[in-house]
């Protein structure tokens, strides 16, 4: 995010940081990713459109993280940002739908609820989310089924 902004001013620094990000990912460093996810969630609670527009691509990357806490914070951050950046957040819906199959129950619950709020004003995204949420009504966990029903209440 800031990377693109600063890269215009200090291209050498930007290049170094890209290298370090690659290193961080390659290291598979959990604390690194959790720290970033926590900060995203905190700042997304009161986003300023002028300041925080470039948060989205970074949060989207964390949706594919292997750690449940990181993924959960990324989902909740997207929910926080939908009022300020509806189109950019809705672009992440296909990735979020994949999380409905996550083995972790809190991920399935929170993704279901977040999806209801994110897609409710978008006809296209509703069509995409509806069958997946319906399928979740058959989930073996009752709290997941309730979360799916909650979102369906916004859509059907």
């Amino acid at each position, binding site marked *: 995010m800031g990377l693109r902004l600063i890269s215009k001013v200090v291209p050498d620094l930007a290049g170094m940081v890209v290298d370090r990000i690659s290193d961080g990912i390659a290291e598979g*460093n959990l604390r690194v990713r959790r720290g970033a996810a926590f900060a995203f969630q905190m700042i997304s609670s009161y986003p300023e459109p002028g300041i925080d527009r470039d948060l989205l691509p970074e949060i989207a990357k964390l949706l594919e993280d292997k750690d449940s806490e990181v993924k959960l914070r990324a989902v909740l951050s997207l929910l926080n940002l939908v009022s300020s950046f509806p189109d950019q957040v809705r672009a992440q819906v296909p990735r979020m739908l994949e999380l409905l199959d996550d083995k972790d129950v809190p991920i399935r619950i929170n993704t279901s609820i977040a999806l209801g709020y994110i897609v409710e004003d978008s006809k296209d995204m509703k069509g995409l989310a509806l069958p997946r949420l319906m399928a979740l009504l058959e989930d073996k966990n009752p709290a997941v089924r309730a979360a799916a029903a909650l979102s369906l209440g916004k859509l059907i």
Partner: protein
Amino acid sequence: MFWKKKSPEEEELDRLISRTKSESLQESLTAVSTIVEKGSASPETIRRFFIPRLPSLLNDGDNRIRTRTAFVVSGLIFKSPDLRRDLVVFMFNLLKHNDPEMRVYAGMVLGRLSAVAPELVKPLVVPVAELLRDRDQVRAGNASFAVAEIGSKSPSLLHDAIPIINELLTKKPEVILNVLKLISLKDPTIVKDSVPKLIEIMEKAKSLDYSWEASIPLVRLSHASRELVEGLMVPQIEPLLNHQNKFARAGAVYVMGGVGTSHPSLAKDVLQKLSAKASDWETVVRTFAAFTLARICYGSPELAETVVPQLTRLLNDSSDTVRGAASIGLRYIAAGSPERVKQITPKLTEMLKDRDQIVRGWRLWGCA
């Protein structure tokens, strides 16, 4: 007992209801839609043959029958205005259903209905809010989504429920904060009467979670008019900056940061009040101070001048979290006042090699 031959309409409804529980999603939803369409084409058929069956269908032992019937009721409510008055009571009663799926579904439908037919939902708002008192936390939590949805779609309807919400706020913060967080997303001013109770939660917080959760509606309220913010919020939040509870101080820094960011005309004054927090003896307070100070300065080179020395100092803080937050802060300065980047570049470059993983992690998106 008399046997009465079913009419063709009844028999067709029977077939459709049976098809709603099909394992095929397509077939199930088609059956739901077909019944809903009958509400528009022939509302009397629905009134005579479907509505009387609702109590048993909504309590059917088959989960699919229950949920699909609820979908039909919702569809009829939105597509057949003539039937709304007959059906809204069923949705309200579902809020007390034993099945949590039915409770939360009904809450969302009532919320949506409040946007299109507020006169039908208004009499239900206080009874819905009363459900927040349920001793069963799951039931109360389910009701919290209903109250929040009504408040989000039609904020003025919540007026009569606000006293109940405020009464329960400190008694059941884990339930009520969910309501306030959701409704403040759409209309922050709706929480203005909750400010004293939110502050009380922050003062008594034994973990950052509670203080932070309570501060979220407040930070959203900071987007309200300057009169409201200056007259109502700041006088109550400012004393918290020096509260003995570190979590209350951290939350207050977060909220004041929102005030400074939302109201550029107040930014200089807020910065002065927050500056000392960058030297607070508690790590959590310095952490919050680091990035809130910088966010306030976004786009203002003049204000950035006053904050960069503090943030640069915090890059050497003993706490890894504070160092990470300082790097986040500098990201905002960099984005808003690029000339300053050139001056802090050597330090940022040094941070790329920070010994601590957290600092490197926060920096990935902070000073990067």
